[in-house]
């Protein structure tokens, strides 16, 4: 009998992850700046379909995560699904759960499969921080709206005349918590202080992230997940790898960087935080039996997942500490049974805070557990680096982490893998995968 809580009573069928693929991740304003969320999503989905030899006609749904909304295409998932490779009847929706948006897309798709509403689903996410919408100020918008409603040319001129010079300054969305007004960086800084995370520890984690990612790039494990981009503009050199990974970075170089969010007493620097990034990623999910009937070999099955939340004013990025025990309990597993842990690295300070939380009795009790999860074996953690080195396109990261975990679990012949993702709003996500 299958024990997977996600199997559902009587269904006996698991949700299989067939494969995942992503674009290279590029620092915002660099190699991928000409591609928007929809283009990045299309590239990832198209390559996923080709690589898996999937019959596009079998796809039931597509769901994609993104964080910065597009005003012109409010449901980018549908725009992606309307690529000519897919039939027009693939229903699609866009989800947003901050940095766990792609995870939300994946769990939505998995839920649809378990509910019996779908058997083949594409889930993923994309973000283009090179293409953030720039907004007009309130005053400018008011004047434009008034002008469009004007009945006479004179009224129109009068409406426009109300514009003041300060109204012309555009508004860019900041990555700040609406409830606390804290930026993400300030939150990470606060967490470092609360949890006593040193600058050295953060820099060491960042260094490990870069070296792990560089190793994965050099030996091809990481690049195997990446589709080549053939730029239409500028250089014609194919883009085949992430451009934020620094193989040659050293502890000394990282130590030289100044703190960004608290210049006097801070420890969070550009070197130990994830950069603003463009990229897209997609994962193919299928009901186990349907995959096998189609001749597709699953790489892994979803064993369990969990979301959790806490007060954003407390420790904004600490909710994975609440989600992970829940996911493991739902999976019927303990941390020592986990072969690999992939933890999204928004900030090194956040990763170290989360790891500390895993070992804390206080956090265990908050999570409703009698004892802590325990210490994560660092040799099993983010073995090909993480978001600090690879980059973090908000909407895409969850699918990137899923793909890496699935592939590396297979390579290492491990049975179970755990992933966690922290997200704005005090949200946390955890998922347990089982190698096929």
């Amino acid at each position, binding site marked *: 009998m299958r024990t997977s809580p996600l199997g559902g009573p009587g269904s006996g069928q698991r949700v299989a992850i067939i494969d995942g693929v992503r674009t290279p991740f590029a620092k915002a304003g660099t190699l991928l700046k000409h591609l928007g969320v929809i*283009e990045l999503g*299309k*590239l990832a989905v*198209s*390559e996923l379909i*080709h*690589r898996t*030899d*999937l*019959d596009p006609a079998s796809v039931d749904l597509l769901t994609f995560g993104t964080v910065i909304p597009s005003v012109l295409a409010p449901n980018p998932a549908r725009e992606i699904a309307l*690529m*000519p*490779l897919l039939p027009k009847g693939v229903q699609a929706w866009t989800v947003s759960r901050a940095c766990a948006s792609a995870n939300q897309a994946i769990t939505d798709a998995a839920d649809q499969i378990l509910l019996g509403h779908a058997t083949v689903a594409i889930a993923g996410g994309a973000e283009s921080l090179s293409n953030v919408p720039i907004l007009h100020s309130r005053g400018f918008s008011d004047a434009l709206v008034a002008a469009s409603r004007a009945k006479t040319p004179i009224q129109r001129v009068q409406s426009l005349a109300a514009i003041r010079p300060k109204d012309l300054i555009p508004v860019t969305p900041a990555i700040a918590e609406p409830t606390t007004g804290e930026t993400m960086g300030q939150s990470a800084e606060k967490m470092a202080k609360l949890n006593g995370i040193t600058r050295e520890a953060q820099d060491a984690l960042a260094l490990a992230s870069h070296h792990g990612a560089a190793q994965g790039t050099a030996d091809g494990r990481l690049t195997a997940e990446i589709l*080549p981009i*053939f730029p*239409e503009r500028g250089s*014609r*050199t*194919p883009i*085949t790898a992430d451009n934020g990974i620094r193989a040659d970075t050293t502890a000394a170089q990282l130590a030289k960087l100044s703190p960004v969010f608290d210049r006097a007493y801070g420890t969070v620097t550009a070197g130990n935080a994830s950069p603003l990034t463009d990229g897209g990623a997609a994962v193919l999910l299928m009901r186990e039996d349907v995959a096998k009937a189609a001749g597709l070999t699953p790489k892994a099955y979803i064993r369990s997942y969990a979301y959790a939340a806490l007060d954003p004013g407390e420790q904004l990025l600490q909710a994975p500490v609440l989600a992970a025990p829940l996911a493991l309990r739902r999976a019927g597993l303990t941390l020592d049974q986990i072969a690999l842990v992939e933890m999204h690295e928004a900030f090194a300070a956040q990763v170290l805070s989360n790891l500390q939380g895993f070992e804390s009795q206080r956090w265990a009790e908050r999570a409703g557990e009698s004892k802590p999860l325990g210490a994560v074996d660092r040799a099993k953690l983010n073995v090909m680096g993480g978001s600090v080195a690879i980059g973090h396109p908000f909407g895409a990261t969850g699918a990137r982490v899923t793909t890496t975990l699935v592939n590396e679990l297979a390579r290492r012949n491990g049975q179970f893998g755990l992933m966690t993702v922290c997200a704005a709003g005090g949200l946390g996500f955890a998922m347990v995968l089982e190698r096929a």
Partner: protein
Amino acid sequence: MTELTALSLSVEDGIAVLTFDLPGESVNKFSPSVIEEFTGYLALLEQDQAVRGAVLISGKPGTFIAGADIDQFLAFRSADDAAQASAFGHTMMRRIETGRIPLVVAVEGACLGGGLEFALAAAYRLAADTPKTVFSLPEIKLGLIPGAGGTQRLPRRIGVQAALDMILTGKNVRAKKAKQLGLIDEIVHPSILREVAIRRARELAEGKIPRARETRRRTTMSRALDDTAVGRAIVLRQARQLAMKKSGGNYPAIPAAIDAVRAAFAGSESAGYATEARLFGQLAMSPVCKELMFLFYATTALKKDAGVPEGTVAAKVDRIGVVGSGFMGAGIAAVSAQQGIPVRFKDTALERVAAGLASVRDVLREGLTRKHITRREYEDRVGLVSGTASYTGFGRIPLVIEAVFEDLGVKHIVVRELEQVLPADAVLATNTSTIPIARIAEASARPARVIGMHFFSPVHKMPLLEVVVTPKTAPEVTATAVEFGRRIGKTVIVVNDAPGFYVNRILAPYIAEAGRLLDEGVRVEAIDRAMRAFGFPVGPFTLIDEVGLDIAGKSGAIMAEAFGDRIRSSEALARVVAAGRLGRKGGKGFYGYDEKGKRTGVDSAVYALYPGGARKTELSAHAIQQRLVLAMVNEAVRCLADGVVRSPRDGDIGAVFGIGFPPFRGGPFRYIDSTGAGEIVSRLEALAATHGGPYVPSDFLTTHARASRTFYPPTGKPV
């Protein structure tokens, strides 16, 4: 009466709606019986005072009227016969134009030739807003001019300039453009076409819309050129100069069309129509018209013949693989994407794929530049081509076309690699121009699935595709390749596997003899000029420069090896190739090219390479033409005798669409028929006495000539 009729009538509140739906045909065509039926209805309606207006609408979705049924043209015995048919058309159009009942045409789909002439005579032209709704006068493509008043009414409606553009090119004009030109009155959504047509007919009947009215928007320029005698004279003169230059004076319909348009403004209306009828009559009996009609029938017949036993089912091709991202591979990928077919595009290194994708985008961008497609459509098409340097994504592909380097070893590696990843029933097509398919198939574990698809460069422009079958090729594999070729818009002939297949095989002696002429001291430009005058789009040396001397040299060597003394080596050609002059791509070949790639004339350095030095031999254009054409024609007959081509029809289509053999001469086999096989044999024998090999007439041809046979029936439908 139980006879099926083309028209059906319903009268709604004083407006007669005639629905045209020709039984047993996919499109509506005008034939004498249809015209009789129509005029019968017209007479009936004219007498019925309750009927105040009429609408003509098509009962066939997506097509209005495709023009006259050209079968009737075959029955013309003299120019007078044809002129009378034209005059008959004039009478009917005049009746529509001046009758009591105003007629509205409601056009959805193609409105061509006689269909457009009919629409021009109507009182109101309403068009549906669909991409298939196009207007054209394609008569010129058959060596004719519009014969039912088109050359008279069109310039009066849209001006001389726009009318000549349509009449001389036969091109399609979409509804939106037709509205801009003033060709039509209004565009509406197809779902309300009939309803609005009836309303407009009523408004015409009530005088709310005047029957005679201008639909053209005039600009200062159009006023000066279209609306004054001097302006029109300038336009007509320039049109003639340009058209004669482009056509080389080989197409009498071009000057005739210009003369007919001139007559529309020169004297009385009836004199104009009389001129049109007279010129139409002359053209209908011309050899050019006869050959162009033949090509029309031949290509139509070919479309119904996939070269496989009846009932063979082609595999469904929902995506393709292309291996090799060179110019050919990129061209194949681009035309497939244009038809909405996903392509997995593979080469050994991503840098090569990137270069190939850049060419794919260049081809696709042409559509964007010409505004045939939107930015969105362009991006969709580009998105259909996904590049890879590994064989991922080939596991479900039903058809792969390899277009890698022309090297048997490389091709063998690719075949073996592909068979590791492809589904067992996939079709493995090889795009080669020189290597026999059977040789390539030697590396295959499933040779029945291997076939040749010989595309011509540039793929997106060249209309022909040779599908090359080996004795082992399975019929459904052939059917799949043919079906796919047609889907991407190619004219497809199925040929048997032999060196050079068909097209390159008949080209080889032609090129070789052109080289021999150089050896004899004939100048490059004299040869190119003579062959252009014969009707080829370019001369042989221009062709070689475009193809590339390296490729031409390699191909020539293979053909010489296969066909011995029929492909004679040319010292001059060899020397130019050996001098490393690569042709256009290398910036120099027989001609020189400037930095922008513009040709600057024959490079005199070439003459220093001649075996005879700068010695010059003058040879008449006629002598040059016969030397080259007869070498080609003789080889074409051998191809038929050897079973390389299945029929003279395929041989003619292959030569016209693959090489540019003058369409107005029909092709090599039509050329033999029109010249006389006996005459061809004696010309060949005369040339063989001096030049041997390529001119020795094949046994097949001499037997054919001795029996006074022709390749095609001399009367009636040619194919």
